[in-house]
């Protein structure tokens, strides 16, 4: 049993919408082999622990139920490292524009 997370905490829940065996007939085999999963964030409505079945209030004011998976989930997307394949393009085209026109 994990530590209790306070009511009102911003959290994310998960829920299986369609299990692997119940996917739509038109989806390709690799997609059919996995469940359709939903993740939504909201404010926790009662104290709970990670992994518990909980209810949240979303920003649209809805109450949704699911498994509590994250507390105050971070945005982790970024730019990442500079990509060498792009790094020299600017100098290449600037050099072209500095050359005298041929025609």
């Amino acid at each position: 049993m994990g530590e209790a997370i306070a009511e009102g905490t911003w959290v994310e829940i998960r829920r299986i919408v369609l299990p692997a065996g119940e996917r739509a007939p038109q989806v390709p085999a690799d997609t059919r082999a996995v469940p359709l999963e939903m993740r939504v964030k909201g404010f926790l409505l009662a104290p709970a622990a990670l992994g518990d079945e909980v209810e949240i209030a979303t920003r649209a004011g809805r109450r949704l139920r699911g498994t509590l998976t994250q507390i105050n989930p971070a945005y982790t997307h970024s730019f990442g490292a500079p990509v060498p394949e792009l790094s020299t393009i600017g100098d290449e085209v600037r050099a072209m524009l500095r050359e005298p026109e041929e025609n």
Partner: protein
Amino acid sequence: MTTESYATIMAQRAAIIRASVGLDYEQYVAGALGFDYERLLTDTGYDIETTRRVQRRTAVGDTPLVELRQITELARRVAPPGKGARIFVKDEAANPSGSFKDRRASLSVHEAKQRGYAGVVAATSGNYGAAVASQAAKAGLRCIIVQEAFDSRGVAQPEIEEKTRACEAYGAEVMRLSVGPELFYVFLRTLKETGYFNASLYTPYSIVGIETLGDELAGQVKEQTGRNPDVVIATHAGGGNVTGTARGLRKAGAVNSAMVAASVDLSGLHMASDRDFNRKSFTTGHTGFSMPFTTWPDRADVPRNAARPLRYLDRFVTVTQGEVFYITQVLAELEGMERGPAGNTSLAAAFAIAQELDEDRLVVVQETEYTGAGKHPLAQLNLAKRLGIEVRRGDPRDNKPGERIVIPEHPSQLGVVDVDLDRIRREYLRHAIQSLPAGEPLSDVDGEFLAAETRTSPSHVRKVIDELCGKTR
């Protein structure tokens, strides 16, 4: 939350959509296949001036038209003598949520508010979600965005992750789903449970909202050059961008401007595949949307799609992933504009098409979009490398979606591949016959509708349909 089954909800599809769009599409039906497209759009009651008034209230539109002098010069350096049209871009990133999608969201949210809906729902993983969330915030409406956001390993597409953040920043609830077309089931279920307005990308409001873009663009080009644009290029996915822009151009009197659609070629990747989801490196503006939507628009989340690109297209081209990343870098470094990358699909095409035209011709790229963490070539190329996709400099013709992204070594390597519009029209007509009820003859009304849809004549439509039926029967 109730959990009505997939089959139960899908069976209620028509009733749920009718209630959520507040539009009776039945009244526009004409013939077995056709419908009165113009009346569907004019019945919205929004002419250009009314739309502009609504959009200005939330600072949507009136974006700058920027001449890309350095990029034009670069194109002339690699073009045949005397060739290299002037290239302009409409800087739609200047809209409140950072893309032209604000124009599409504005009328939908305005309608939802006027009609007393408590909130809006949209199924979108792209800029449109942020646009709806931003407009809903200004209107004081609740907002739910349904996204296809991550694969079965939980790996989110970085551009969509940024959209999640943006929607949440505007106060929306974001339902993030794993890969699959059953998103539509979750969307319908949400509409039914909430009774909110369906801010679909494909309602008449969404398309009429873009007409101001074409109208402004024509006015600005005329003001800066004294003429109408020769070519206007739009990044093409679901067809709304092409349709609304072309309609706006016509209304502004720019009737001879050629409307060109450009899509990133993603052939070989399956749009509903869990594995391919993160291997696309583009979330929109690609052939995975544009091919199915151009050949059959009525696959959308409303009974009749108001985006009907074949009615307006003069030309349809594709470019490669590597070419778009290349031109995105060039735009940043030669013009000081960090934008895109998805919106730069049409800029990659413009760079090549300008070289076909004389120097005094005018080519306009009709949108940019904001850039940022996740929504950037660096984020996409780093993810591609992590997934084992090769990224290298070389001939862009060696680009292979999902396997190899080839960034051009020289601007002379940028080009477009023409999509055969006759083949696309034929494909459209094949879909049309398939949707004709069994035993129902093709009436004259239908023949005229299909001629307007394909920009051909009723006799041509009948000839092609006879050929297709001869083959299939």
